[in-house]
């Protein structure tokens, strides 16, 4: 696998604090006359889980789609790796918030992976080799037993893990996760955060996660970005959750147990 080579880190001269990073500079998105967000500037570091929080309509999902290049936006997306070998546009993995498919669709998890990863027409053939490969990928997200399940028969949490596995093939530079607002039970959420947390550590991934569960954010995230039309607040979970502006937006006190966390990099905090 080439994945490890891409992310092997050595010290770099770039102005990134870590070994590789993604820079989002001056992102603006407007639909017609409606400004969704403006002047969004973010540094996303490798090996860090950045949680994107904010009220409904803050532009969180739109920001991810702008990073994906699917929504028209102004601003630049830059990626710098350790040696400048792989700089330019990052390889992006994406887990959408929901799928818009028909629940009765006769498509199995194996079909989905075959269609994504290969050009072998999955309506005609299937091969043992692909099956084994997909099975190995699914092990990473503890979903290997779901390989022959119909997509419509998966629970919310199972579907989310399957999509996560899909976004990891090949291992991206930047992983964008848009968490569903509902439909996943608490155990499923914990499992998902655990897997994402391991990925960050093992693959040195940059992860941006839109989250609606502030307690889990406090527990797992390295950085938190509060978005509401623009970046209101950006820093470690303690900094952001203790900031009066956060309380202002959410209108409540956020509990968090920062003790569990790995100490994180505090530079370029704007709080």
């Amino acid at each position, binding site marked *: 696998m080439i994945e490890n080579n891409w992310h092997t880190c050595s010290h770099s001269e770039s102005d990134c604090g870590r070994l590789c990073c993604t820079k989002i500079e001056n992102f603006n998105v407007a639909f017609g006359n409606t400004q969704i967000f403006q002047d969004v500037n973010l540094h996303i570091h490798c090996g860090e889980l950045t949680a994107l929080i904010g009220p409904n309509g803050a532009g969180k999902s739109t920001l991810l789609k702008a990073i994906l290049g699917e929504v028209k936006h102004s601003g630049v997306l830059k990626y710098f790796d350790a040696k400048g070998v792989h700089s330019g546009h990052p390889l992006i993995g*994406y887990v*959408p918030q929901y799928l818009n498919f028909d629940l009765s*669709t*006769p*498509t*199995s998890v194996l*079909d989905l992976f*075959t269609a994504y990863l290969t050009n072998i027409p999955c309506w005609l053939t*299937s091969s043992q080799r692909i099956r084994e490969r997909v099975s190995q990928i699914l092990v990473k997200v503890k979903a290997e037993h779901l390989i022959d399940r119909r*997509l419509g028969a998966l629970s919310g949490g199972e579907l989310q893990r399957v999509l996560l596995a899909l976004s990891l093939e090949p291992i991206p530079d930047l992983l964008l996760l848009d968490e569903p607002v509902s439909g996943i039970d608490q155990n499923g959420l914990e499992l998902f955060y655990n897997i994402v947390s391991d990925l960050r550590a093992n693959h040195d991934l940059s992860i941006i996660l839109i989250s609606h569960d502030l307690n889990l954010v406090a527990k797992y995230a390295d950085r938190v970005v509060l978005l509401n039309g623009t970046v209101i607040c950006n820093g470690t979970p303690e900094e952001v959750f203790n900031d009066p502006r956060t309380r202002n937006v959410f209108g409540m006190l956020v509990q968090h147990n920062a003790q569990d966390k790995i100490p994180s990099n505090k530079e370029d905090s704007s709080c």
Partner: protein
Amino acid sequence: MLDLWYDLINFILPFQWLGHNFMKNALLAVLLVTPLFGLLGTMVVSNRMVFFSDSLGHGAFTGIAIGVLVGGIKPLTALVLFSLFFSIAITVIKNKSRVSTDTIIGVFSSTAIALGLMIMSHGGSFAKFSSYLIGDLLSITPGELGMLFCVFIGIVLLWLAIFNKILVISINPSLAASRGINTLLIEILFSSALAIVVAISIQWVGLLIINSMLVLPAAAARNVTSNVRQYHLVSVLFAMFAGVAGLILSYYWNTATGATIILIAAMLFFSTFLLRNRFVD
């Protein structure tokens, strides 16, 4: 080439209903065109494009009218060209605007049918177009069979090349785009394939029921399958079975072939619908 087919039929299927050459031609046409309906139908139903494929029939209707009005070119050429234009226009506008898809299709569809009716009714000549409404499979000529064969090969090759991408887009367009898939191009290719198949078969199946040929076999197959391979296999088999059975029954009952085929496909849908809990988890 066709003589070989006639001899083969006389040898292996020496039935009364296949006695005439026009029935042998019709059988060959059914065997070529129904698998295409079965194949393309799978993604028409999965992508919720039933209304879109319905509108293709309306577009084809205008194509026929324009073909006759312009003259000089064969009606079929005008029909295929207009249908292609119609389907690509809908796909592009759907992708470029934020208006809901069914509204766009509705607008195009009614514009097309109105235009077609105006041209056809001009000078009271509507009656000569009515055969397109019902279709006549038995009128197919050897030349048309050759064309059908080429289309068959073309569509199967296209399906081999782009099916995976269509499936990915049908699950989630953003996800597909994040994989570097040109979603607009794939959608245009798919809708063009649909437009061509609908346009060339409309004269045999009939405008009123052409959409059911795309929808029913796939919809029936969904009731009893749980992965893509089974879905395609069953959909194609249902389409071919309905086609052949409909051809035979229409011969003995003296009914319109297209309509008889659809009725059998509909019965397949209802019976699989009742049995679906035995097959799908």
